C-alpha cells in the first residue's frame, strides 16, 4: 500500500507512534485507568481509536495547523487523547494546572489564544464560565468531560466530550483520510506544546516545545542509552500523577508511553495516590522532591507508631540501612559483597515490606527532578533498595540535560549530560548553558525574553549557577537570582540550607532570608499532618495550623531541626533566627507557583514584619 511508504517518509511524532503501535501490537495494553474500584484497560488499538476520533472532531470544529487547544483537567486518559489528538492535527496543546484560579485561567487562555478548551468537570467549567465572554476573544468551544452539573448549563460554547467524539466519528465517516493527511504534513518545527513556566516572578511565559524537541527527548531518554540498561519497555509500569501540563510528567506519560511502549496508569484521584501506587507497584517512578520527602516522612511516622517488636526490628535494620546507604554513596551506587548480602537479608526483615507499603516493591529505577532535593533523602531511598537518580532539566530544554546513572552516582550532583547534550558553564557567572535539539523554540509572543534566554550560538541560558564535580558531573549551586550575598560579602546558596531543613519530617516549607543582612534567618512552615500526630501523641491540644505553630513545644521541636541543620554548615551559613509561618502556603493565595515552588518575593512582602522582627 502507498500509505506505508507515505508513513515512513513522514515525520514521526508521539501521535504517529501511537498509530504505529496500534498497527504493530494492537492488543497490548497501552493505558490503564482505575474507575469505580477496577483497573480498566485501553489497548493500543483503543488508544489510537480515541486519539484519531478526537483529531477528527478537532478538524470538524475547524481547528487549523498552529491553532491552540487547551485542557484544564487532572490526569486521566482524556488528557492524553487531547494532547496527542492535537499533535496529530498539527495543533498546539496547552495544559492548565487543575489548581489554576480564575484569573490565571483567563490569562493563560488569552495569552495562548486558545480556540478550544477541554474542561474536566463543573469545578473547572465554572472557572472559565465566570469570565465574561467578551474578555475571552479567542475561545470558541468548551468541551466538558464529566456531565454532572454541567449538563444543566446553557452556554452555547459548551459541548460534552461524548458529543464532541460523536462529531469526530461522523467526520471520520465522511472524510476517512482527513487526519492521516494532516499528520503526513507534520514538520519538525511544528509546535507541539505551549508549556507555561510557573514563574516565581512576573506572569507565566509560554515555552514553545516543538516536534523536534520531543523527538530528541524520545531518542535520549526513552532509548536504551537513557538512564538504565535495558531502557524502558513493555514490561515496565508507570503511574501518571504529576501535573500533565508540566514537561516532567509529559516525558513519562507521553514520551515513555508512546516512545517505549510503557503502559501508563491513571489512578482514581490524587487523594488515592498511595493506594493506586500500591495496586500498580510501578517499575519506574518519577517524583519531585516534595513527593520523596513525603514518602520519607510517612515511613518515619509509621515506624514511630509501630508495635515495640516491630520498632526493635526497624531500629536494627535501619542501622544496617545507614551502613548500606553510606557505602552506596561512597561507591557511586555500587554494592560491596557485604552490603549486597546485608541488603538481601534486610529485604526479608524490613526493606521489602517498607517498599511494598509505598508502592515501590518492583521499582527498577526512580527519578527525582524539577527541584533540588536533599542528598540525605536520596541516600535513604538508596539504602532501602530504591535505586533513585537525580536528574536535571527545565521546560526550556524539554526537561533533558543531565542525569545520574547506575554505578556513576555522585550524590549532591544532578549527574552527567545526556549523550547528545552539550553543556558548559559561563566563564564569568558560572551559569549553566545547554545546547541540543531539545532546546525550545522560544517564549510565545515574547521575542525579547527569548533573545535573552537563547543566545546567537544556540546556547540556552538556564538561570542556574552550577559547577563541575570530578569533571563529569554537574552540581547546581542555586538559581542566579536566589543567591544570597550577606552584608559580610559571603555568597550563600539558600536552597541547599532549605532542603536540609526540609529533611526533617516536621518541616514542610523553609525560606532562608539574609540578602544584604548580617546573618541568615528562616521562615519555616510545619507539616501539619506530621506535627499534629506528634502533638496528639504528647497530648498537646491544638486546633488550627496557626494554633499548632504557636505552641512552644512545636517551636522547640523545630529548633532541634534547625540546630541539626546548622551543624552541617559553616558559620556564615547558619540560621540564627527563625519564625514559624502562621498559615500554610498556598497556590491559590499566590504564595506558591502551580508546581508548589515558593514565590520568594511574595513571601518576603507578606511576612515582612516577621522578617524584620528577626533582625531587631
Amino acid at each position, binding site marked *: 500500500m502507498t500509505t506505508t511508504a507515505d508513513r515512513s517518509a513522514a515525520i514521526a511524532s508521539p501521535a504517529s507512534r501511537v498509530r504505529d503501535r496500534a498497527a504493530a501490537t494492537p492488543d497490548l495494553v497501552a493505558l490503564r485507568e482505575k*474507575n*469505580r474500584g477496577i483497573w480498566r484497560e485501553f489497548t493500543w488499538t483503543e488508544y489510537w481509536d480515541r486519539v484519531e476520533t478526537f483529531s477528527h472532531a478537532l478538524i470538524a470544529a475547524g481547528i487549523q495547523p498552529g491553532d491552540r487547544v487547551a485542557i484544564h483537567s487532572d490526569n486521566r486518559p482524556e488528557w492524553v487523547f487531547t494532547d496527542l489528538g492535537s499533535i496529530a492535527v498539527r495543533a498546539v496543546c496547552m495544559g492548565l494546572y487543575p489548581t489554576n484560579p480564575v484569573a490565571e485561567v483567563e490569562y493563560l487562555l488569552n495569552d495562548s489564544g486558545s480556540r478550544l478548551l477541554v474542561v474536566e468537570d463543573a469545578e473547572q467549567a465554572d472557572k472559565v464560565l465566570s469570565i465574561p465572554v467578551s474578555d475571552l476573544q479567542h475561545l470558541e468551544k468548551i468541551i466538558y468531560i*464529566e456531565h*454532572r452539573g454541567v449538563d444543566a448549563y446553557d452556554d452555547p460554547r459548551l459541548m460534552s466530550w461524548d458529543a464532541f467524539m460523536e462529531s469526530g466519528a461522523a467526520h471520520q465517516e465522511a472524510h476517512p483520510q482527513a487526519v492521516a493527511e494532516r499528520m503526513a504534513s507534520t514538520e519538525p518545527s511544528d509546535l507541539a506544546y505551549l508549556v507555561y513556566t510557573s514563574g516565581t516572578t512576573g506572569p507565566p511565559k509560554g515555552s514553545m516545545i516543538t516536534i523536534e524537541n520531543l523527538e530528541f527527548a524520545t531518542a535520549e531518554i526513552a532509548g536504551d542509552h537513557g538512564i538504565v540498561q535495558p531502557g524502558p519497555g513493555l514490561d515496565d509500569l508507570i503511574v501518571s500523577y504529576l501535573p500533565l501540563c508540566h514537561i516532567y510528567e509529559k516525558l513519562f506519560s507521553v514520551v515513555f508511553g508512546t516512545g517505549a511502549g510503557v503502559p501508563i496508569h491513571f489512578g482514581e484521584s490524587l487523594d488515592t495516590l498511595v*493506594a493506586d501506587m500500591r495496586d500498580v507497584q510501578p517499575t519506574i517512578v518519577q517524583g519531585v522532591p516534595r513527593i520523596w520527602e513525603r514518602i520519607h516522612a510517612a515511613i518515619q511516622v509509621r515506624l514511630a507508631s509501630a508495635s515495640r517488636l516491630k520498632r526493635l526490628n526497624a531500629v536494627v535494620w535501619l542501622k544496617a540501612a545507614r551502613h548500606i546507604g553510606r557505602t552506596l554513596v561512597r561507591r557511586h551506587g555500587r554494592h560491596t559483597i557485604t552490603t549486597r548480602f546485608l541488603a538481601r537479608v534486610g529485604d526479608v526483615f524490613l526493606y521489602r515490606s517498607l517498599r511494598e507499603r509505598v508502592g515501590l516493591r518492583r521499582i527498577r529505577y526512580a527519578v527525582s527532578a524539577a527541584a533540588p532535593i536533599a542528598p540525605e533523602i536520596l541516600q535513604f531511598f538508596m539504602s532501602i533498595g530504591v535505586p533513585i537518580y537525580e536528574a536535571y532539566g527545565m521546560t526550556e530544554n524539554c526537561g533533558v540535560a543531565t542525569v545520574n546513572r547506575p554505578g556513576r552516582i555522585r550524590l549532591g550532583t544532578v549527574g552527567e549530560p545526556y549523550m547528545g547534550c552539550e553543556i558548559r558553564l559561563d566563564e564569568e557567572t558560572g551559569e549553566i548553558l545547554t545546547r541540543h535539539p531539545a532546546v525550545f523554540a522560544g517564549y510565545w509572543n515574547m521575542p525579547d525574553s527569548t533573545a535573552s534566554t537563547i543566545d546567537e550560538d544556540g546556547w540556552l541560558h538556564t538561570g542556574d549557577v552550577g559547577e563541575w564535580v570530578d569533571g563529569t558531573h554537574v552540581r547546581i549551586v542555586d538559581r542566579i537570582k536566589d543567591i544570597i550575598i550577606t552584608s559580610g560579602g559571603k555568597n550563600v546558596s539558600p536552597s541547599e540550607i532549605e532542603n536540609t531543613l526540609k529533611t526533617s519530617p516536621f518541616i514542610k516549607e523553609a525560606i532562608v532570608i539574609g540578602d544584604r543582612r548580617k546573618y541568615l534567618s528562616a521562615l519555616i512552615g510545619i507539616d501539619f499532618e506530621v506535627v499534629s500526630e506528634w502533638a496528639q501523641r504528647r497530648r498537646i491540644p491544638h486546633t488550627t495550623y496557626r494554633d499548632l505553630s504557636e505552641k512552644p513545644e512545636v517551636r522547640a521541636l523545630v529548633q532541634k531541626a534547625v540546630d541539626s541543620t546548622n551543624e552541617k554548615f559553616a558559620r556564615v551559613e547558619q540560621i540564627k533566627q527563625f519564625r514559624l509561618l502562621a498559615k500554610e502556603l498556598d497556590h491559590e493565595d499566590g504564595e506558591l507557583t502551580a508546581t508548589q515552588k515558593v514565590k520568594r518575593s511574595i513571601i518576603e512582602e507578606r511576612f515582612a514584619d516577621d522578617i524584620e522582627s528577626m533582625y531587631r
Partner: protein
Amino acid sequence: MRARLLHEFLQHAEGQEPILEIADLHLSFAGIKAIDGVSLTVRNGELFAIIGPNGAGKTSIFNCISGVYRPQEGSIRFLGRDLLGMKPHRIADLGVARTFQNIELFPQLTVLDNLMLGRHQHVRYGTFAAAVRFGRASREEARNREVVEGIIEFLDIQQHRKSYVLMLPYGIQKRIELGRALAMEPKLLLLDEPAAGMNVEETEDMARFITDIKRELGIGVILVDHEMRMVMDLADTVLAIDFGKPIAVGKPQEIQANQDVIRAYLGQEHSVADTGGTT
C-alpha cells in the same frame, strides 16, 4: 471514562406524581402531643423541607413514616399503600430510605461493607448460593458492587473505601450515611439533619450532593435541618411546625415572610436577644 450519573445505575423516577401522602397525623406520648394534625404531600422530584424549633416533632414525623412510631390517628400512604402498622423493614423494602441525626453506621466495618449492607434488600440469592458463590450469587454480588462503587464515586470517597468507619472524620461519616441510604435505591429519601455539626465547606458539599440526587434521580426527598440557608436554598416546599402543629406550608420565600413562622422559629433567637425573651 466519565463518572456515571446516578440515574445510569440506580432506579429513578419520572414525572411529578405524589408518592407520599400524610393526612391529619397525631402522635402523643403519655398525653404529650408530639405531632398534632400534620398533613403533607410529597411528589417525585420534590425536595420537601420540614423546619421547626428543637423538639417540634420533626424527627417524630420521620419515625412515623419509617414505622418506628405508630401514630394514634391519621394516615400515611406511600405509593398508594397504607404504611400504618407496617414493620420498618417492610417499609424500607418498599423504597423508603433514611439517614439519622446521630450517625447510625457499623463503626467496626469498612465503608465498603457498610455500603454493601445497604444493598441487602436487593439480595435475592439464598444461603446455599452464597456459600458456593456461584451463578446467581456471584452475578448479584458483582451487580451490587457496581452500584456501591458508583455511589463511592458520586460521593468522592474513593480514598476511604477500605477504611473503618470509626476512624473517619464526622463529615465523611455523614456522607457515608447518605451513601448507605442511596445504596437502597430509594423512591423516597428521608434526610434527618444531614448538615448538622458540619463546617461551611462540608455543608456546601452536602448541599451539592442533595441537589445532584434530586436532579439525577428525580425521587422525592424530605429534608429536616437547622441550617436555614441550606434549607431555603434547596427546598421546593417548606413545612414549618411548632410543638407538633403545622404553622405554614409553602415556597421558601413565602415561609421566610410568614409572620407566624418568624415568631415561632426564625425570630425566636432575635426576640430573646431583642426584647428580653417574650415568646
